[in-house]
């Protein structure tokens, strides 16, 4: 009976987190930290830091990684499923409802014009996210070189409408870095 209460609490808490956190990953982490570490004491602060670091190097939204982990810690696989479900459910419902109305909404010319403005804004926001990441990056020749190369490659792919996947560009970046690492190690030993 006690276990059922915990499971219910996990689901409900993460639904709340999912419903009230705007602005993506990092905003959600601070809320998860506040609720799961400070208030509910579901996991320790150190554990939370560990998940965040691992979450950064694994694919997928960081908030989902954190939710999954907290659920696992508290109640195994069932817990992990419930917390993940909880954090996704609110936005799923909201976006699903929006998807039913968006097209007819866009036929109003005022709205259409507003969205034309938004389209420019979104391009700038993406650019800004890239610039922020560059600022945080270590400025060593290899990563900087890879940034320039991949940006140039992607621009060419986009402007010339070449069919070449960005996944391949990323894997190439990884390959270049690994090769350099191996070459350096070999050079160091010789």
């Amino acid at each position, binding site marked *: 009976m006690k276990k059922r209460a915990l499971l219910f609490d996990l689901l409900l808490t993460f639904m709340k987190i*999912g419903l009230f956190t*705007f602005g*993506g*990953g*990092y905003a959600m982490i601070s809320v998860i930290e506040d609720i799961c570490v400070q208030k509910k004491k579901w996991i320790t602060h150190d554990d939370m830091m560990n998940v965040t670091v691992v979450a950064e*190097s*694994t*694919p*997928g939204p960081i*908030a*989902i*990684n954190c939710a*999954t982990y907290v659920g696992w810690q508290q109640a195994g696989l069932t817990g*992990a499923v419930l917390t993940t479900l909880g954090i*996704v459910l*609110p*936005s*799923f419902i*909201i*976006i699903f409802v929006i*998807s039913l109305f*968006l097209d007819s909404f866009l036929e109003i*010319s005022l709205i259409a014009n*507003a*969205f*034309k*403005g*938004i*389209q*420019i*804004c979104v*391009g*700038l*926001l*993406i*650019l800004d*996210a*890239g*610039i922020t*990441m560059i600022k945080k*990056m270590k400025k060593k020749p290899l*990563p*900087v070189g*890879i*940034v320039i*190369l*991949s*940006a140039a490659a*992607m621009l060419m792919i*986009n402007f010339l409408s070449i069919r070449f996947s960005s996944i391949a*560009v*990323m894997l190439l*970046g*990884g*390959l*270049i870095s*690994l090769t*350099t*690492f*191996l070459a350096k190690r070999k050079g160091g030993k010789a």
Partner: protein
Amino acid sequence: MIYLDLFLGFLKVGCFSFGGAYAAIPLIREIVLSYGWLSDEALSYMIAVSESTPGPIMVNLATYVGSSQAGFFGSLLATFSVVLPAFVLILLLMCLLKTVIKNKYVQAIMQGMKPAMIGIILATGVFMTYKAVRAAEGAVFDAPALLLMLLLIFTKVIYKRIRRKKLSPLVLIALSAVLGAVIFAL
């Protein structure tokens, strides 16, 4: 088959989106364009809608694309497949393979993939902005769109100078909507 396409497409997104919301956009864009699920225009509308609603952008986009392509079950499936890799991987790594992530070869690969992703994001930002301000015909740029872009950049830079922190994306989106409604109506 649409369900299989949705599953595989968003599984790919879920597997290769490292490092936060905007990092996944180039990949999502590539996939929705190649399947013909969304246009560049519709995609940026949905990015704005996702920014203004709770939840990770990647998940929101999956829900929307799934719904617009194959109704309720489509949206359920797309959301499920975008979340699945994150769910499985974090459990594997935190519980079974804690050492894998610290392995130096894995680290070396990651250190190359991250800058490559930054380059991809930059290029996508440039290209999407360019497409939004490009003129339909004749001149290279659409004058009102260019004006709107400059106003947005100006506001963003000035705000950062004065308040010493970043203008929230939500405010910037709201501003661009108002400016768009005014400028494009003239």
